[in-house]
């Protein structure tokens, strides 16, 4: 029996109370295969990740850089099916008590049926969705469904978003606002943009209470730096690369190293 997961918001609040920022860790389902991706997600949780972001492999991932594209293309070539997401969430939640958000491009959800997808995610013990290629003004059905099911809905905010759009995004979001650190796609960067700090401060002015920064964060120093002004740091590419290069052992080491950046002292 899967117990109800602690909510994303409550985990972030608890971490903050303990003098830490939150480490949000991404991996795609089905890479390098379904079973290993489940073990890998569990390894993240056991090595300092506070929230999991499980990516859904998709044929046309316009917001992803080459490392994640190659991993998700591999998963698709191996026969990934959408239903594997629910299998993975359920298996992970049975082993570790951590909130699991699913990061998905929109068409697969639309084809599965927004309500049907949401109900299956709730049954599996998932916490909500991160939707990189739709914005609140194009997401009326998802907003209605997430209100019905209580799932979190994480929308993205960009440095180029106007104040009016930031306000709309803050209003529509539940869980945290995903602040895109820089104008670009997922991937490693030497400097996490100063734009991220400005964006988080603008989000706060727009009334946002919880902000996590993603894109380009790849080491503990960057995690530490981001957590000076944001509630959470989201890491994807560095973890996918570790898993691809050195399997679960390397992934666990990388996650533990990244987690060492979360202390706010």
């Amino acid at each position: 029996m899967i117990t109800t997961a602690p909510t994303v918001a409550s985990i972030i609040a608890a971490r903050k109370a303990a003098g830490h920022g939150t480490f949000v860790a991404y991996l795609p389902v089905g890479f390098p295969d379904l079973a290993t991706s489940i073990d890998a997600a569990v390894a993240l949780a056991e090595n300092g990740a506070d929230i999991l972001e499980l990516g859904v492999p998709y044929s046309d991932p316009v917001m992803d850089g080459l490392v994640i594209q190659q991993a998700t293309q591999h998963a698709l070539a191996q026969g990934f099916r959408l239903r594997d997401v629910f299998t993975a969430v359920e298996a992970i939640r049975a082993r570790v008590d951590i909130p699991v958000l699913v990061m998905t491009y929109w068409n697969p959800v639309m084809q599965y049926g927004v309500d049907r997808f949401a109900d299956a995610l709730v049954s599996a013990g998932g916490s909500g969705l991160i939707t990189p290629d739709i914005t609140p003004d194009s997401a009326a059905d998802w907003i209605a469904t997430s209100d019905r099911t209580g799932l979190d809905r994480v929308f993205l905010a960009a440095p180029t978003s106007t104040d009016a759009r930031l306000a709309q995004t803050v209003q529509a979001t539940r869980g945290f606002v995903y602040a895109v650190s820089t104008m670009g796609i997922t991937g490693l960067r030497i400097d996490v943009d100063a734009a991220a700090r400005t964006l988080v401060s603008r989000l706060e002015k727009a009334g946002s209470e919880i902000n996590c920064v993603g894109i380009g964060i790849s080491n503990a120093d960057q995690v530490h730096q981001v957590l000076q002004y944001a509630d959470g740091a989201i890491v994807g590419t560095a973890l996918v690369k570790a898993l691809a290069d050195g399997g679960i052992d390397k992934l666990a080491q990388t996650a533990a190293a990244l987690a060492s950046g979360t202390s706010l002292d």
Partner: protein
Amino acid sequence: MTALRNEQGPYFGEYGGRYMPESLIAAIDEITAAYEASKSDPVFRDELAELHRTYTGRPSIITEVPRFAEHAGGARIILKREDLNHTGSHKINNVLGQALLTKRLGKTRIIAETGAGQHGVATATAAALFGLECTIFMGEVDTQRQALNVARMRLLGAEVVSVTTGSRTLKDAINEAYREWVTSVETTNYVFGTAAGPHPFPAMVRDFQKIIGEEARQQVLELTGQLPDAVVACVGGGSNAIGIFHAFLDDPGVRLFGFEAAGDGVDTDRHAASIERGRPGVLHGARSYLLQDEDGQTIESHSISAGLDYPGVGPEHAWLSDIGRATYLPATDTEAMEALRLLSRTEGIIPAIESAHALAGAMRLGHELGPDAVILVNLSGRGDKDVATAGRWFDLFDEGARQE
């Protein structure tokens, strides 16, 4: 009843919209505003009209093709000669409009996707004309089968990026262009090539292409004293088709036919017939008919014609199909290539393989509609770029011969 010609998006019935990452919304809003402002700006209109007249060579002529029509049931067949435009296809009509908008936005660089290379060549041409930097994204499969156009773009000063991810064709070129746009949006405008993608592209590209139908409607009236019974175009994303259809949308006596690429046949798994065999979904920012599997993963399309090798279709076509205003039918690789050879031999006009799908459709319609029918066909591009493909298809090369 509202005129069908008045539809401005973002939705055409239940199709269209703007399903895009937040990172690109500001840029899309900026283009939308510039485009809306340009509509009522006589300076913009005059500047574009002058370019059409002195650079593109508009108005393009119409040509009646009686020797070809003998093979099409004897109906009168009239070609709208977009193949005679500078750069060899209808693509230049849209590119010049969007390049002028780029200048108004104060941006210094344009990027574009291309399938057959015609939109890429047109964009590289406009970049040279306006002194803009230019990068073109093209799937690796297409850079090989349209190698001549790659060289043309480079000759014009553009950088051509060969896209090696996904199916390595047009859809992946669009993905890569979006990724590049997110990264460089402050200096760069994305000149989208077809009447698909997020709003405002379907409406804007259509508006820059609708000159085709406006000219042709008048020209056919002058030549024949009547409107055509049928208007025929090939449909990939659908920009040349919506361009020639638009002027006729509110003429109920004029039937509109779009021919999708059927590749090896719509009952095989190698075709690009999105309306015929797809179902509604979201790809590249718009809801429309889409070739996809049960899970919503895009299925790779196949066509001998790189310009039609796309698993989606513009949202206005999806809507026109649903309401029954236009009819969309498939034409196979073989039918298109036979029509290409026939037009070449009977009329001395070598069409693009894309446009040959429309010719194949016209041959079929001619037999159905009979000798009294007047059929207007959009000859959207010329076949120079396709000579190597045709040479292989028809075995026209001497063994061992190489052009050095």
